[in-house]
């Protein structure tokens, strides 16, 4: 190793660089002090931007750097230009994007729009019908469509009316007629069409001018991803989720505009910051929710108005039930986990589902379980199994495991009187109709005969719709 300092510089006690005076002055005094105080050093001088040893640039002409090993000098510069990174939220938006039509798909001849009567007639079981455009907008507003559903490969959003669909619609209709509330949980295996059945129920509600309130994902309320605050004066303490509620009010307003615009308030709401006199249109009340701060108050007022006597029937729906049937991820001020049923909005749904808050104008409270994304909720599972066994009048109703601790009494209580609709695979006739629709859209490139239907139906685990889609549509064997 060569000496870091030039001998000449060491001999005379002066800054190692023979600099012109004006440069010396310009240089920071600290650097000079270092040069003065430590002329001897065992480390190689590390000059800023110096090319190498002995270079006579302005920083240090006489400072010789040691022999340096330059690693990877033959490597190419690997920092390739990757283009513009996606903006914040762009990736999520792409992931959650919902495409409802595809102009490359062929229009299906003879496809008719749904009418309110279509969904009630048992003759229409195993038919594919398209959703009217107005209803599509409403469904989109309440986020009834899911990104996992295959809307984006067809020309127009259409759906298969299953036997279960017709059955459920008739039950909803019957309940509304008798001013009763249908409280029902849709359950079943993965991708058997539970969310789709909820969507069909919402379609039915929109077609019949019901009021629809939809919580698209129960998960959004309990995974501590939205703001929350304790409701002042509540005992026991309940928590409101203002931002979410604001979004919900806006969704309700947008989706139910047709119905709400005809209605006006029947109660005075003195607690609201904005004065809304009795008889003012409901849209005005809904529109008054502009910011999250008073969203919960306005939501309560809106809820009171919507559940007042003489209103149209209401559908309250929620997907992903197991997320709200557990202890949430939120924390109380004492840093204890908050039970999901202590969140005010969740509580509203659970009470409606449990029968505590019945709708005076009739309607339905529907919940769908999710199998792809569902935390363990043993109480919910057990309750649903028990209800199912009770409905089927089975001899042995499943009993709770006496030595298992994970049961939740509140969940048991909430699901004590619900009805359960268990979805499984579709019949072969329904499968045939569905596959004919696929083929007519130009997506399924086979002749839809009995053998093809039978093949896909079997591949799809005895007609599980999602699995059939996977087997027929989502493979790249076009």
């Amino acid at each position: 190793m060569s000496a870091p300092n030039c001998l000449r510089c060491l001999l005379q006690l002066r800054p190692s660089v023979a600099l012109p005076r004006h440069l010396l002055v310009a240089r920071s005094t600290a650097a000079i002090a270092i040069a003065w105080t430590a002329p001897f050093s065992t480390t190689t001088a590390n000059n800023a931007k110096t090319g190498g040893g002995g270079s006579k640039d302005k920083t240090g002409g006489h400072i010789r750097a040691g022999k340096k090993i330059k690693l990877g000098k033959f490597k190419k510069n690997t920092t390739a230009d990757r283009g513009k990174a996606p903006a914040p939220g762009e990736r999520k938006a792409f992931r959650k994007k919902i495409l409802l039509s595809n102009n490359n798909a062929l229009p299906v001849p003879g496809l008719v729009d749904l009418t309110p009567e279509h969904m009630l007639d048992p003759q229409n079981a195993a038919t594919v019908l398209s959703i009217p455009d107005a209803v599509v907008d409403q469904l989109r507003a309440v986020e009834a469509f899911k990104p996992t559903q295959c809307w984006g490969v067809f020309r127009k959003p259409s759906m298969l009316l299953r036997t279960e669909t017709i059955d459920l619609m008739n039950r909803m209709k019957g309940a509304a007629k008798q001013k009763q509330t249908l409280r029902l949980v849709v359950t079943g295996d993965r991708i058997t069409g539970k969310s789709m059945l909820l969507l069909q129920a919402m379609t039915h509600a929109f077609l019949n001018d019901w009021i629809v309130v939809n919580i698209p994902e129960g998960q959004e309320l309990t995974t501590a991803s939205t703001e929350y605050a304790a409701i002042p004066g509540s005992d026991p303490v309940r928590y409101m989720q203002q931002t979410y509620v604001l979004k919900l009010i806006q969704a309700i307003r947008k989706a139910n505009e047709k119905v709400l615009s005809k209605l006006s308030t029947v109660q005075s709401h003195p607690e609201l910051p904005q004065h809304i006199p009795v008889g003012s249109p409901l849209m005005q009340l809904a529109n008054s929710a502009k910011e999250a701060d008073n969203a919960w108050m306005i939501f309560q007022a809106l809820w009171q108005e919507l559940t007042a006597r003489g209103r149209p029937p209401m559908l309250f729906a929620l997907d992903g039930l197991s997320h709200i049937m557990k202890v949430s991820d939120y924390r109380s001020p004492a840093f204890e986990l908050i039970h999901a049923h202590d969140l005010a909005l969740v509580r509203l749904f659970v009470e409606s589902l449990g029968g505590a808050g019945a709708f005076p104008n009739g309607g339905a409270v529907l919940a769908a379980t999710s199998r792809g994304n569902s935390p363990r909720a043993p109480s919910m599972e057990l309750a649903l199994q028990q209800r199912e066994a009770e409905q089927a009048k089975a001899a042995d109703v499943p009993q709770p495991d006496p030595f298992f601790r994970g049961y939740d009494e509140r969940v048991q209580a909430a699901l004590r009187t619900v009805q359960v609709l268990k979805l499984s695979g579709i019949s072969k006739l329904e499968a045939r109709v569905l596959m004919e629709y696929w083929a007519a859209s130009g997506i399924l490139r086979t002749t839809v005969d009995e053998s093809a239907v039978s093949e896909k139906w079997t591949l799809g685990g005895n007609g599980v719709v999602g699995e059939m889609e996977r087997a027929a549509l989502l493979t790249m064997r076009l």
Partner: protein
Amino acid sequence: MASTANSLRLGLRGSSSQIARLQTGTRPSPPAAVAVALAAALRRRCLSTMPPRWAADGKDAEAPGELELEFSRNYANPGEFLADYLRKDTITRAERQQAARMLEQWKEAPAELQGQYEQLARNVYTQAAPLKRPVQPRKNSFWNAEEKDTDLITDEVGEDDFEEDDILSMGHGKLEEHREAREYSRVTVWEMPLLSKFAKPFVPPTGDEVLRFRYTTYMGEFHPADRKVVVEFCPKDLRSLTDAQQLKLKKLAGPRYNPEKDIIKMSCEIHEHQAQNKRHLGDMIDRMIATAKDPTDMFEDIPLDTRHHTFTVKPKFPKEWRMTEERRKELEAIRQEAFRLDEARRTGGGLVDGVVRIQEALAAPQAAAAELQPVMARRGGARPGKQNARPQPRR
């Protein structure tokens, strides 16, 4: 650098006082005195690895009958030593008298005995001389490796050498195998038939014999597990118990109850003998039955705990899925019907074909496009004469 052997060799020579202390009697007999003198003759050096023990100033030194022996030269016989000893003026009177008496005895001894003693002393000296010679390590030696260890306890050299007078150990092993086989053959032929006298016909257990014991034997060999006794019984077989009592018995059995087989299985090996362990188990079952019959607490608030047991579900091929001749016919009928339906649709035009559908769709818009092809026309009609007047692009 002295080796261990060398130090041992040096340690053999005890100090004179130690040798003297070997004499315990007040009046040493002549042979003992002679031995002392011989030891003095053997003495060559005062070097010892043992710590020197200094004679105490007090009574020990004054003790009568104890000769203070200091050897400064080699003596050919005990007489020489005693004469030399008597010449000393440091010895006490008693010692002097004793020494004088011993010298008298020596002189009275026959000449040939004296000669033998002298010869013995000479022999000992000559034979011990090479041993006593100090071993000088050689100059070029490495760790004194060439030193011969003379103090080996056994002479192992050649112990394992095969002397060509025996068969190999493998042969011995083979012979042993033959012997064993023949022994068992003898047992088979002569002793086993006698066992048939003890044979009993199998009698299935009656309804009263509900306990099933299992014992372990290692054919007479001692084994820590041969004392173990296992008992199994089904609570349902205990007919004296009601259903509630049977349930309580199952709860009492805890993890020893197998809910799948409905069997309680217990074992005992705490006692030394099999019979004791069996007795213990019998007593335990008696107590359990007595407790189960006790109506004070029927454990109704405690559910039967089966957490210890893993229920294994063995999937079985369903009977309905079996391919019977009937089922074959049924399937054939279904297929025929499906084929008939498809044919009807094919002729009637109700069959949807994805490929055909795409082809139709691809053909249709082209036809439509051909019809609706916009015709580009100049305003004011075409003027062919002007076309040539357009300036050509320069090359």
